[in-house]
């Protein structure tokens, strides 16, 4: 990624924000109601038309990607898929809020965000397919490898931002997590370091209500997750996580604050995991279908489509184009997933160290010998009538 040298103030703001400025609103920021009608806000303006149309396109592609991946799991083409179905507005906004030289530190549920940032879906799915632990070059896309231990990546994000600040670069880092991760110690340490060193980080928590089966009430007794920000001395904000315009407005403000030297922000998006944790999960054991149904009415795609249609910005022809684009993407992904590349066993030994130590070379030779003997015995079996 290109680096963006800039001058950044060496010292934290001269006038620290008052405690009242750090608290989130009592209710999440919302620019769309549940019918998709726009809703004026005194502080957060509606993003411009072009940005909304770009966002809608990404939503359509993201929903199709989620549903295609779920189908690929059923077909045995993916080992596992933690779907973000219902959370696509958060996924898309995360990618759209960042500029070219910025960085995203995603989790395993953020495949749509990664793809929206430009990583080819097949590369984003390497971890979940089981070919390798990560499938893309992080520096090429400004996307860290997907983290599966929940909160460890938040510290990496903070360190990346700290280095950017020391190097005088204007990079902004988006540190992504879910609601369950806010109970981990690394979440606390990451927010504390970011605030103490006044770093250009936006912490973006997708609160989808559940950590696998455990509801939010078992994670925190705080009024909201965004209220935790004041404890670190950074602003917190809550936003409707199924409202793409509101997400863009809130994240844009946080990114701008970070880029202009204003330090970190904690943004909590209230959303809902419409499907089970993964294909291996059974969500009927811990939640009622009525609860899921109430969130169907808040579907982020439906609301955006209603907004754009009511403003006559989205024509039926454009909608057809987008569906065709999404189907082409899904078809391409199906082909990529059908094509099984031969996994190279030597790869196990190739990257552990920059230079392969003699003991690892010995172990590779052991495995290579096993492989050649099993090939030879397979060959001799074939020759036997």
């Amino acid at each position, binding site marked *: 990624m290109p680096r963006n040298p800039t001058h950044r103030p060496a010292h934290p703001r001269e006038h620290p924000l008052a405690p009242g400025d750090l608290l989130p609103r009592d209710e999440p920021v919302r620019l769309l109601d549940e019918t998709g009608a726009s809703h004026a806000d005194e502080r957060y303006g509606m993003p411009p038309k072009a940005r909304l149309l770009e966002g809608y396109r990404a939503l359509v592609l993201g929903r199709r990607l989620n549903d295609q991946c779920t189908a690929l799991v059923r077909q045995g083409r993916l080992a596992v898929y933690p779907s973000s179905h219902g959370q696509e507005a958060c996924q898309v906004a995360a990618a759209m809020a960042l500029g070219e030289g910025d960085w995203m530190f995603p989790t395993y549920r953020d495949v749509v965000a990664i793809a929206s940032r430009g990583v080819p879906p097949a590369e984003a799915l390497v971890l979940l397919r089981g070919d390798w*632990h990560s499938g893309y070059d992080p520096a090429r896309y400004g996307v860290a490898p997907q983290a599966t231990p929940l909160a460890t990546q938040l510290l990496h994000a903070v360190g990346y931002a700290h280095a950017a600040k*020391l190097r005088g670069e204007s990079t902004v880092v988006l540190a992504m997590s879910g609601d369950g991760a806010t109970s981990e110690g690394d979440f606390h*340490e*990451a927010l504390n*370091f970011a605030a103490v060193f006044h770093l250009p980080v936006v912490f973006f928590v997708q609160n989808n209500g559940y950590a696998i089966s455990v509801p939010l009430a078992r994670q925190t007794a705080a009024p909201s997750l965004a209220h935790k920000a004041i404890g670190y001395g950074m602003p917190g904000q809550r936003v409707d996580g199924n409202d793409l315009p509101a997400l863009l407005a809130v994240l844009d403000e946080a990114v701008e604050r970070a880029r202009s030297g204003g330090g970190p922000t904690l943004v909590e998006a209230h959303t809902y995991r419409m499907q089970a944790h993964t294909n291996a999960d059974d969500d009927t054991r811990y939640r009622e279908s009525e609860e899921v149904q109430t969130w169907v009415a808040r579907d982020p795609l439906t609301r955006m489509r209603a907004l754009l249609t009511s403003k006559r910005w989205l024509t039926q022809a454009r909608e057809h184009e987008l569906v065709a684009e999404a189907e082409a993407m899904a078809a391409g992904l199906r082909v990529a997933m059908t094509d099984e590349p031969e996994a190279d066993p030597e790869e196990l030994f*190739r*990257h552990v160290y920059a230079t392969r130590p003699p003991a690892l070379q010995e172990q590779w030779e052991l495995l290579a010998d096993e492989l050649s003997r099993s090939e030879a015995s397979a060959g001799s079996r074939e020759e036997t009538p």
Partner: protein
Amino acid sequence: MTILQDAPPAAAAPAVRETMTMAAALNRALADALAEDDRVVVFGEDVGALGGVFRITDGLRARFGEERCFDTPLAEAGIVGTAVGMAMNGLRPVVEMQFDAFAYPALEQIVSHVAKMGNRTRGAMRLPIVIRVPYGGGIGGVEHHCDSSEAYYAHTPGLTVVSPATPQDAYALLRAAMRHPDPVVFLEPKKLYWAKGEVDTSITAELGRAVVVRPGSDVTLIAYGTSVPTALAAAEAAGAEGRSVGVVDVRTLAPFDDATVTDAVRATGRAVVVAEAPGFASVAAEIAARVGERCFSYLEAPVRRVTGFDVPYAPPKLEHHYLPDVDRILDAIDTLYPDEA
């Protein structure tokens, strides 16, 4: 100053040759690296104004500034986790854990990320991080200040684990660690911090290489860190009793230098591994197993281990019973000669 771009290194620090403590040698290594490579940053708890509780970072903040040597919040996972992100963004972080047992909060970051990022990204993102850990006992420290924690790190593929036993090696190995493309856990034997020796800063050392520090033809003692001077003293005492005992200083615990150790043991046919950590599932256990596998037909006697007991580290008034000492090593050597009993 705004610094830390990917510029070629500045001119090398002028070489010196003088007698100094291991603490001073480590301090000089950090200072020379900071001077030569502006990607190097040093941080941790109390490393700034105080210069570290062992004074290893003494004077670095004053000389190189707050951006190059700074105190962090008191949070070990945070220190190591942010070092990961800094290394991803082109810096070469050197972090200090205040004591062995206080590094455990960082273990998840070390095991799951520091060790694995290069492998995870197929080499696209290697992490040149040095994690300095004062370790081991023998200093009268209370609980949580004297652990020999090397096995936790050595067991983790992807980590390079180093421990010096002399001021010269402390300087040269720390410099090598800071130039290394992969993460290094650098274990500093705190009992030896104030031991003096000559240091020539022009001498370099290679990670992954053990060294024969005393030749011997009858028995090979294999040791690292604080146990090296103990092993040397035992070898000297055994010499007075007529046995020629050699000592190998392992220096890099992982990846392990089988060649040097194997050659030394094959030449004597008898081996004792000496280490302070509890012996069960330890680095000493691994060394004994490797020597057994590779030297079996050369051995005159089973490989012996002299290690700490399999108990939590002893309180100060009992640690002299816990730590391997010269007599315990000599007793182990005697068992290699059953016919003389």
